[in-house]
């Protein structure tokens, strides 16, 4: 009996040591899980893989293990990040504004306060896009036509409850914009519909429309300033419309990880984001890189949250 007790004690002690000791070692000392809330090979995945390449350059001893948790437009994966262990060894990629809209409109398993924000890495502006052979040569022409012919203009959006949907609601609020709206499941369907003539114009992200540049005309960007990718495309602001809309990608950890781990992650991500080679790779992949630190990002998200509650909350 006594012997068995000692054996049990020894095993428990060994387990305790195995669990507790590593936690006291300095961060980082084991591989980190990277949760991607979309399918492997998608835009979010490609961006994170570029990030990984430079992480390995700065922190070669710590590898990333990619875990894909797609479903419900990212909501499943975002919830997974929020609920993961708060030890600093689980990071995840999020998309803004999707994550905010989901928290408002669904019974999602997360709130914005459930995360600590590492930083923003991509700011992908929305644009007004038509076919190359379209009669519309500027965003103003599109808006004016829609007002003169209510319901005639067919506009394609990815959604519902997406960044595109938000911009569309904003357009409706500010300009009236009486059009026929059609929702698509993804950007591939949406691009195909525009090229095939099912819709006359669409609201799309720069990253997504860049792939069919040969066939499309980008009329205007819903951004504060012009983009390096397409320096000739004006902003909606220049055309006289106060409309700003974008999709941002950022990296987060569950709230409450050790402070030194968070500081380490923030510092390393910042180093990567400012690396000229990284920026070159991002540009080649058509990902509009823009660094924003975690604190500033959270502030931006809180102001967006109020807008979104006003636009979607009543539904």
């Amino acid at each position: 009996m006594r012997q068995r007790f000692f054996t049990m004690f020894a095993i428990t002690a060994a387990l305790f040591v195995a669990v507790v000791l590593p936690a006291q070692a300095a961060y980082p000392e084991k591989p980190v899980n990277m949760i991607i809330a979309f399918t492997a090979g998608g835009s979010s995945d490609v961006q994170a893989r570029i990030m990984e390449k430079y992480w390995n350059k700065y922190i070669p001893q710590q590898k990333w293990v990619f875990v894909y948790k797609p479903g419900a437009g990212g909501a499943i994966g975002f919830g997974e990040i929020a609920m993961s262990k708060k030890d600093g060894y689980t990071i995840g990629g999020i998309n803004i504004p999707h994550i905010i809209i989901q928290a408002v409109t669904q019974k999602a398993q997360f709130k914005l306060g459930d995360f600590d924000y590492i930083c923003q890495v991509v700011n992908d502006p929305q644009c007004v896009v038509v076919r190359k052979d379209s009669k519309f040569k500027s965003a103003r022409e599109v808006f004016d036509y829609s007002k003169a012919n209510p319901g005639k203009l067919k506009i394609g959006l990815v959604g519902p409850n997406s960044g595109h949907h938000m911009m569309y609601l904003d357009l409706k609020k500010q300009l009236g914009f009486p059009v026929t709206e059609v929702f698509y499941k993804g950007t591939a369907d949406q691009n195909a519909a525009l090229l095939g003539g099912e819709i006359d114009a669409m609201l799309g992200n720069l990253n997504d429309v860049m792939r069919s540049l040969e066939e499309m005309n980008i009329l205007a960007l819903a951004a504060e300033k012009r983009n390096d990718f397409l320096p000739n495309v004006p902003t909606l602001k220049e055309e006289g419309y106060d409309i700003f809309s974008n999709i941002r990608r950022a990296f987060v950890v569950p709230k409450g990880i050790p402070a030194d781990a968070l500081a380490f992650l923030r510092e390393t991500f910042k180093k990567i984001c400012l690396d000229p080679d990284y920026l070159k790779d991002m540009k080649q992949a058509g990902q509009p890189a823009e660094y924003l630190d975690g604190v500033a990002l959270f502030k931006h998200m809180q102001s967006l949250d109020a807008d979104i509650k006003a636009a979607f909350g009543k539904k």
Partner: protein
Amino acid sequence: MNEFFIPALTNLCDPVSILLMVGGLAGGIVIGALPGLTATMGVALMVPVTFAMDATSGLVMLGAIYVGAIYGGSNSACLICTPGTPSSVATTFDGWPMCQAGRADRALITSLLSSSFGGFIGTAFLLFLAAPLARFAIKFGGPENFWLCLFGLSSIAVMSSGNIIKGLVSGGLGMLVATIGLDPHGATPRFTFDYYPLIQGVEVIPAMIGLFSISQVLYLIGSYKPFLAQYNPTLGVFGVVARELFGKCKTVLLRSSIIGTLVGMLPGAGGEIASIIAYNESKRWDKRPDRYGTGIVEGVASSESANNAVIGGSFIPMLTLGIPGSAVAAVILGALLAKGIQPGFKVFTVTGELAYTFIFSQFVVNLLMIPVGLLLVKVLVRLLRVRLTFVAIGIVLLSVIGAYAIRNSMLDVWIALIFGILGYFCNRVKLDTGAMALGIILGPMIEENFGKCVSLSKASRDSVIQVFLDSPITLILICLTLLSLCTPFIMHLWHQRAAAEAGLSAQPVLTVPEDWLKDVMSGFFVLLISVVFFTQIFELEDVGRSYALLLLAFITLMGLYLCFQGVLKRRRLAGGVSSDEEPVNMRRVAVIVVASVAYAAFIPILGFYPSSSFFLCLSAIILNNSGGSPYVAACLLTLIMCLAVWLVFAMLLGVPTPEGILFQ
């Protein structure tokens, strides 16, 4: 274009390229053959590897994996009646009967040669007709895709010509189950039964793993057979099959390959629809359609040539317009863009060397597939020499890890198990699991595209019919669908006339005698499901609700009809119920069900490998029926399976296995 030919061919003669193609093919075939690991996953997991290569080699390798995986799916379809990828559903219809009749080698080589042929045709279209076909493909919008899906669905009527009502109700059940999750129009949760994770919906692949592979395991365990199937190798089988395919089946092959290419290049539809449509067209135009489903070469050939032709087709809009024709093409497009290569018609001039190397590599890959595939066929038929109990237990393990790997979610494991038990029950009462799978695949696409039509109708005076009338392609598809729905009746009349001419009394070709109890039970099952879903209907609104209500009403009506039909049959039979079924050992079925459920329940506690070892070892010992001592065999099975899973999933693909609280 000619100036790129020589450099492209030189690129391909490079030993590294050949190695990449052979490696990609072999890996792809294994991934495709494992239920749960699909072509999409296999390619996506290899994308990061291509980041370290030059763009051309990366593209060539990804293309080879795609080809291998789509062919690989047919191996498990023929050998264990489980489509390895959703594209191989139609291959099971004739492949499995062939295997059961002892002609497994013929089925496998038929699918190998047809896949290779289909791939060739698809690539030829890509090489010569990419530009005009791409322009045509993007004409397929909401209305066109809606009717294309309905056309695919109408094949249920041809498929289950023996029992149309049960076929239709099974398709309806599949469509109903597919409505679980986020409603595509309002993005509100639907039929989640207040369980949040269900918001991600019932994914096609776990449901298919359940309907096909787990229900197949239950059937196999319950049967008194010692082995999967008899196996009588044919001498000189390669020559025999090749002569048969390229002699008598050349029309079937060519037609199916063209259907595959055309469906493949459409952005909305992929291999799973192409193979079903091709199978049905072969059956429709055959002089003796009743032979389909009994294990004939034409059946396997049409499905497999079509799904491999899809590959070339799906690259057409991907390369020329930047619009992927299938889920796998979307992943490959992502890899291309990450390399900074801009798709577009200019791809053939500005980056011509890359484009032509890629296209030529597809020809070479399809050629190389024949020797690589033959080698693997030789290995795979050995599966038929393993005792059935062990094979069946091994399939459970593969199904569980396969279902988990799709989204790294235990929910999918449970979905697979539940669908397995339901699928077994459905097979017993003669509901059609093939039609159900079709409903699960096509249901969401039908709803989504119908939603687009409704949205578009706002610009056409709120008339959806006007939207349909506006497109000539839609009109053609509507006619085809109606024709397809009438086919069983036309065939019936034609048979009657032929019989009358032959001086025989008209035989009731289309009615299969069935015992009444099955009708009543299937009717009750259908009604039960509709009641369960009906409890949730009040929480829904708008389009998401009316679509679900429509489905429910249809299913309820059909369920009532089935009950009624059963009762009527009983009256007519008045006693003597004849049954020509094989005996079933229900005790063994119950044991494997309990063991599988316990296995899934223990994974989150014990971790994947410990629970798998327990499950494999214990069920092999309990279910052993070889007469000898089970312990050595059970340990061997456990060791081999765990090692294989660890090698393929953890080492090769880097897919995480479920973690437990106690062990990782």
